[in-house]
Every structure is written in C-alpha cells, then in structure tokens.
C-alpha cells in the first residue's frame, strides 16, 4: 500500500523533472518536505519496484525499427507458460502478454514485434511461429498512432 506522501511523490515524479543542479530539492519544496525525506521516499519506491524505471525517455522516431506489428496468438492454455517464455527470448519481441480472450475474439497471447519493415516483421513472426510450434495467429500492423502519452497517477 502507498501512503499519502508516497502518492504525492509519485505524482511529482511522473512529469518532467527540472534540469537544474538540485531538481529533487525543488520538488521536495513543493510538497513542503525536506530534500532528504524526498530522496529517501524515491529510493524506497525504487527498491520496492514501484518505480519501473527512473530516467530519461528518448525520442526514437528515427530509430531503425520502422514497422511494428501486434501479433495475437491462440495458444492452448496448457502451453501458454512455455510458449511465453520462448517468445520472450526473441529480440524482435518487445512485449509479450497472456490476456483473457473475449466473446468473438479467441486469441489469448499477444506479442509486439518490431522490425525494419513489414517484410522483416512477417519473416520474424514466421521464425517465432516455428520456434514455439504455434500457427494460429493474426498480424495487426499499426497504420497510425492515434495517441501516445504516459499515465498520470494520483492527480485528483
């Protein structure tokens, strides 16, 4: 569970922290706590894994990975665990989840596949399909980014 002050610290850290010599001092002052107390809370949140990553987020639009496909797979539930572990080892896959299927949508595993172009995406998915011995899947190439932002927690 998170304490009220921890929630305030999380809210303070989820934006863009100032680029100054003592950025955490500025943030601490806004919460009327000492810099030491602020730093202790941040380090504690980090150690507890509540902060997934603290650092700079870089603009990657010119990266070499221009095509991305979401691949939805229908995998027998008894094989989900072993298939997921193998899928996770592929460097082309950045995200891999099991999700509940829904009425009219039988797929239960999802992978995000990144490659230089669509042909390489198909090629990678073909290799992954063979490696996990699963061939019931569908590719959904992204045509347009409609929204991309980071979540703001505890702001109300």
């Amino acid at each position: 569970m998170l304490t009220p002050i921890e929630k305030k610290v999380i809210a303070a850290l989820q934006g863009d922290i100032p680029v100054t010599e003592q950025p955490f001092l500025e943030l601490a002052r806004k919460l009327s706590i000492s810099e030491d107390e602020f730093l202790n809370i941040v380090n504690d949140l980090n150690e507890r894994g509540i902060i997934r990553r603290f650092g700079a987020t870089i603009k990657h639009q010119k990266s070499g990975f221009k095509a991305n496909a979401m691949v939805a797979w229908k995998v027998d539930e008894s094989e989900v665990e072993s298939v997921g572990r193998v899928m996770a080892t592929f460097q082309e896959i950045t995200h891999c989840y099991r999700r509940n299927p829904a009425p009219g949508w039988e797929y239960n595993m999802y992978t995000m596949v990144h490659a230089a172009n669509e042909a390489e995406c198909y090629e990678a998915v073909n290799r992954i399909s063979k490696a996990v011995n699963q061939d019931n899947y569908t590719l959904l190439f992204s045509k347009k980014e409609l929204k991309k932002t980071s979540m703001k927690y505890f702001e109300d």
Partner: protein
Amino acid sequence: MTDSDIRHNENAESNGLDATDRKILNHIQLNFPITSRPYQTIANALDMTEDDVVRRVKRLRETGIIRRIGGNFGPDKVGYHSTLCAASVPPEKVAHFTSVVNAYTGVTHNYLREHHFNVWFTFIAPSVQTIRDNLARISSDTGISPILNLPSTRVFKISANFKL
C-alpha cells in the same frame, strides 16, 4: 533487463549527437541518480564536470532528443488496473470514435491497425469497474459495440530500446 533486450538503433548519427552525448544518454535512461546533486553524480561516473553534464542535458532536452526525465510506473504496482481494448470502427467513424476515446486520461496509447478490429487502445484506471463503466459510456456515446476488454493475466516481457 538483460543484454538481449537492448537493441541498437541508428538514431544517434542522424541527430547530430557526439560520443559524449550518447554516453550521457545511455547512462541516464537507466541510471539517473536519485541523489541531491544527480548531475554531479553523473559527472563523477563519466569523468566530466557537473556544468558540462547540465549544459548538454539542457540542450538535449531543448532539442527534443530527451522527451522527459522522470519516473515510469507500472499500473499494477501503484494499485491501478490496465487493459487492452479493441473496436471495429467503420472508416467514416474513426475520427469521432478517436476523439471520444482519447479524451479519457486513462487512455495512454491508441493505434489504428489493419484488421477488422481496427482501433486498439490501452485503458488504465483505479478499478476494473471504472474501466467497464467507461467502455460502456464510450459505446453509448459512439454507437460502437462491442469494445473488447482484454486485461492481461501474465506478463512475459516488457522492454524498450535504450542503447544509442
């Protein structure tokens, strides 16, 4: 995060970054110090001066190479719930549907995809019920139904490109 998760990209040269910029960027994506004088800590690690690090980071921030510096939180770790949603939206209704969906702050990612189910978005909220209520409201506001609600039950991998 293992070495196999880290992938190189060709960002650096095309953005006019020098070797020192890249060294700083590689360092502060994963190891931004949580200390009183973080830029002094970085300077010590990279054998630079605090002034030089601050100056370069300010420039990288101003030119947009650095989008932001801050914390990234997993929804489940802060007591929130997240899900992936999909809808089949006729082309002429995509713009309206998108404006309704994107107005929710809990919708953080939304993509148009080539498929019968063509609009895919993520929804984060304090409770499962809030997500269900909001999806029902989106359906009634847009006439688009069903909206698939596909919460994850097991995460095998989340990674990103950090190496410049």
